[in-house]
């Protein structure tokens, strides 16, 4: 049985069926991401001053990923136009470019950005102990300049001071997840030795008043933070703060959408030839609806980027 309206428009809707289907799907996607963005606004408005991290994401890398997605959106629309012109070789080239750009986006996200977060460390200091760490937080300076208070010391975890079997030990930390591993073993953590970020190394330097465009990495200044003064400490993972919880939820879901799009494009790249020879217009329509989905994924990122990286 032949499926109707794969190319021609239905008289009542004025659209071919796949197009109507994908727009209905995209409407549901707007609600899905809308709910998550609404949650972001909810958490951000509810966050106390100083508890919503800023400048912890790499702006140049985020900008690069935005440009990559924009480029992939252009290549897929050119691929569709090539199919309309019956230029199959050109279409394959544009489709391959889209796939490679999508993969590059994922490689940057999963191969660089996420791992950098998993290896970064942050310790929120208890309010009653803030004075002890004034040299690294600079709250008096922040107060004088009308800046938000600083409660967190960030950097790379260097060593963990522990008490194991009644003996004091210093363990070289490979990653912040070592903390959880030691706790699971019943080891008592006494202190964290952290190679702090520039803002904590020079908290009264006016250059650190606002997030920097380029991430400078940790300094060589090692700061000892006593566990008794720490409200909570972890890598930049979802449990670190509500910022990272919603960051990983939204960017993770967006990444899954990229994977979904790449699977569809991969199928068309390897198995699309049969349909093209049978009915090229239907093939063009399939690429059009897949392209609409891909543009939507780009559209979501257009808001993800400023909301998390810039604001």
């Amino acid at each position, binding site marked *: 049985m032949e499926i109707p309206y794969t190319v021609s428009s239905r008289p009542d809707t004025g*659209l071919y069926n796949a197009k109507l289907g994908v727009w209905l799907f995209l409407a549901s996607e707007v609600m899905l991401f809308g709910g998550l963005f609404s949650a972001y606004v909810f958490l951000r408005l509810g966050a106390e001053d100083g508890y919503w991290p800023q400048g912890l994401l790499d702006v140049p890398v985020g900008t690069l990923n*935005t440009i990559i997605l924009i480029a992939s959106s252009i290549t897929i629309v050119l691929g569709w136009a090539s199919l309309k012109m019956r230029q199959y070789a050109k279409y394959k080239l544009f489709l391959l470019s889209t796939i490679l750009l999508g993969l590059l986006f994922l490689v940057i996200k999963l191969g660089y950005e996420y791992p950098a977060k998993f290896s970064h460390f942050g310790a929120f200091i208890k309010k009653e102990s803030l004075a002890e760490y004034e040299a690294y937080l600079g709250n008096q300076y922040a107060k004088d300049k009308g800046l938000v208070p600083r409660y967190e010391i960030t950097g790379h975890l260097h060593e963990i001071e522990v008490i194991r079997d009644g003996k004091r030990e210093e363990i070289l930390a490979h990653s912040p997840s070592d903390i959880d591993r030691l706790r699971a073993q019943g080891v008592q953590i006494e202190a964290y030795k952290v190679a702090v970020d520039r803002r904590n190394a020079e908290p009264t330097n006016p250059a650190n008043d606002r997030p920097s465009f380029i991430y400078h990495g940790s300094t060589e200044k090692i700061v000892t933070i006593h566990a008794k003064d720490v409200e909570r400490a972890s890598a930049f993972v979802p449990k670190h703060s509500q910022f990272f919880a919603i960051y990983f939820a939204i960017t993770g879901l967006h990444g899954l959408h990229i994977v979904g799009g790449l699977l569809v494009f991969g199928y068309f790249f390897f198995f699309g030839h049969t349909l093209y020879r049978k009915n090229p217009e239907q093939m063009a329509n399939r690429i059009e609806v897949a392209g609409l989905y891909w543009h939507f994924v780009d559209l979501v990122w*257009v*808001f993800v980027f400023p909301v998390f990286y810039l604001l």
Partner: protein
Amino acid sequence: MSDITAPANETPSAENVEAFNRHLKGYVFIGGLQVLFTFVAVIFSFVFTETATKMSAVLLAASINAAIVAFIQMHLKGEKPFIWRFLYFTAIFFFFLFFLTLLHHGDPIAGSVIHY
């Protein structure tokens, strides 16, 4: 009813090729415009210091970028009224979600304000 159309080996006319090249240039221009607005958003985020101004400026640049994607790349500009009809409903539900958040912010339930 058959949906079979022009064969795959059909050669495009010179006019069609010209139209295609025009489209190609147009879409590359649109892509350039999007990159430009991405940079504008980044610059705004570093130029403006006051939070409300910064948020408004950056989100405005992002919204222009999103409008370019929706209206030009997704062809919403010339899309059938049928699609617009259910997109209106989506927009209403979408803004209602944000209204709920703002409602909570303006009138919080005692003890529900979450820190860090």
